[in-house]
């Protein structure tokens, strides 16, 4: 909890020091993806369910936010709450169907359902979603007489959500509920025999994770002032999987490291070559093979070795 507080305070000082709009926009983007990745890790890292369908909750959050808010900046909070509820509900629905399968088939099923949402948004529902063109003119928030239009104040508003997500995730991991989820990951049969309702636990954590995704999607829509089906695309699910593995799954700070490294790599590589995604693929394969616990795990191991040697 101390580290959480420290990180949030450090991030709160940033707008005082950094005045560059591009950098603030970039930091805001990172925090939004962190909210998404924190929610994702509850499912993948804590409970051990590999979901390839999280794009659905992210994208649905964006659309629901854009539709609820319309052009009215004052409805921001209502829009975010609606996005969280919609993301959570979609996640419950997806889990209820996909949990009829286990293991790898569960993963593929989540992907298939997410693709269903993608197709629905791109063509049959295009009167509502604007099809491939998307919805433009999504407002930045303004409520209680305060406008969050400029990048610095919007950054601080997103920081509040980021802090809530981080603290929420930390508390959830420590709670009895979080411990039970850990138990499900380590040995599902044993958890079941101990009297835990495994299916209910999985459904619950999926719903919570979906709500995180919905909030992240809503914030992204407001940041970019634009929504299109890309948020629902499978590559969004892929991105969050890559971020999680890159950072280190099952840890509180792993996803944050993963998001920051991913986005920074994307910024630096894509400014030099258009083939950034292929390079990312190679990095991803190497990390999956040689660093199964991600950058966070590698740091921890180095730190432990260092501590052991100094103690000796």
């Amino acid at each position, binding site marked *: 909890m101390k580290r959480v507080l420290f990180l949030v305070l450090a991030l709160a000082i940033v707008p005082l020091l950094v005045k560059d709009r591009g950098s603030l926009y970039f930091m805001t983007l990172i925090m939004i993806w962190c909210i998404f990745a924190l929610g994702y890790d509850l499912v993948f890292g804590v409970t051990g369910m590999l979901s390839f369908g999280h794009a659905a909750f992210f994208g649905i959050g964006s659309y629901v936010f854009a539709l609820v808010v319309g052009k009215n900046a004052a409805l921001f909070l209502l829009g975010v709450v609606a996005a969280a509820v919609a993301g959570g509900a979609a996640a419950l629905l997806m889990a209820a169907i996909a949990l009829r399968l286990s293991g790898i088939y569960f993963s*593929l099923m989540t992907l298939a359902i997410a693709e269903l949402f993608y197709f629905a948004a791109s*063509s049959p529902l295009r009167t509502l979603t604007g099809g491939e063109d998307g919805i433009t003119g999504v407002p930045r928030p303004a409520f209680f007489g305060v406008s969050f239009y400029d990048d610095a104040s919007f950054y601080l508003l997103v920081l509040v959500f980021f802090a809530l997500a981080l603290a929420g995730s930390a508390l959830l991991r420590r709670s009895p509920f979080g411990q039970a989820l850990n138990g499900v990951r380590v040995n599902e049969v044993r958890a079941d025999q101990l009297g835990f309702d495994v299916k209910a636990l999985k459904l619950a954590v999926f719903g919570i994770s979906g709500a995180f995704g919905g909030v992240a999607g809503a914030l992204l829509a407001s940041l970019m002032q634009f929504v299109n089906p890309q948020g629902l695309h499978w590559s969004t699910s892929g991105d969050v999987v890559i971020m999680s593995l890159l950072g280190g799954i099952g840890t509180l700070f792993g996803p944050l490291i993963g998001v920051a490294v991913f986005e920074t790599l994307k910024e630096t590589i894509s400014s030099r070559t258009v083939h950034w995604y292929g390079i990312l*693929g*190679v990095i991803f394969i190497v990390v999956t*093979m040689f660093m199964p616990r991600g950058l966070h795990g590698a740091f921890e191991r180095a730190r432990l070795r260092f501590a052991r040697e100094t103690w000796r």
Partner: protein
Amino acid sequence: MSVILIGLSLGMLLFLLAAGLTLVFGLLGVVNFAHGSLYMLGAYVALQLVAWTGSFWLALLLAPLAVGLVGGLLERLTLRRLYGRDPAYQLLITFGYILVIEEFIRMVWGVNFRSINPPSPLAGTTELFGSTVTDYRLFIIGFGLLLSLALFFVVERTRIGIVVRAASANSAMVSCLGIDVGKVRTGVFVAGAMLAAISGVVAAPLLPLKLGMSFTIIIDCFIVVVIGGLGNIRGAILGAMLIGMMRAVGQQFAADWIFLLTYGLLIATLIFRPEGLFNVRGRTA
């Protein structure tokens, strides 16, 4: 009538893909996410070979060999090291392949739509049961049928097939009998990649070649496998035909809704018959 033939040809393509996916899953326990990308790679390599040699038949022969080689390299270099680990990591590795293969295609062939003409002897049309169908569709149905029969023959009637089936059932036992299971795995992965590439080459004259084609097909393929019953290659035939028909009929009457329709079938199958529509012996996986 032509709708039925179009459905049959789509079903044949889907079956060839699903068979490769099922085969690899049976032995390696890996759902190859990049199966669709290998299919796409097959189609693009064929495009290049046709441009160089002018012969579709040569492309149909050589492209699968090239893609098989790629598959073998991927298995040897990366997948092989992960067999002991959680299956999730194997799925993730094959997801990495998708990114790399897509990027390779973007680098070499660009993002524009490309197409291949059907080979000249099959460019015409035939009158059949009072409706016109392209000869190429008929070729796909015949070719798919032949290849499926050959596949069944190899898997069920030859020594190679026996080894593969035995290794799927109990790989430790097979390796105790003096068979190099590592080689069998590589071989099956190569065979799966070649099947994917063959479907890619055969499909190339029918569809525009574009980057998104890999993903559409892998999802369809997965739907076929689930509807047919997991790991059940006979069920996969019926699943492939059903989805092929739905696609063909849907394309004609309600193009916007086919995706929802096929997904509806998938979800309904999972809810009411999770062991697969055509599985009589009960659940196998």
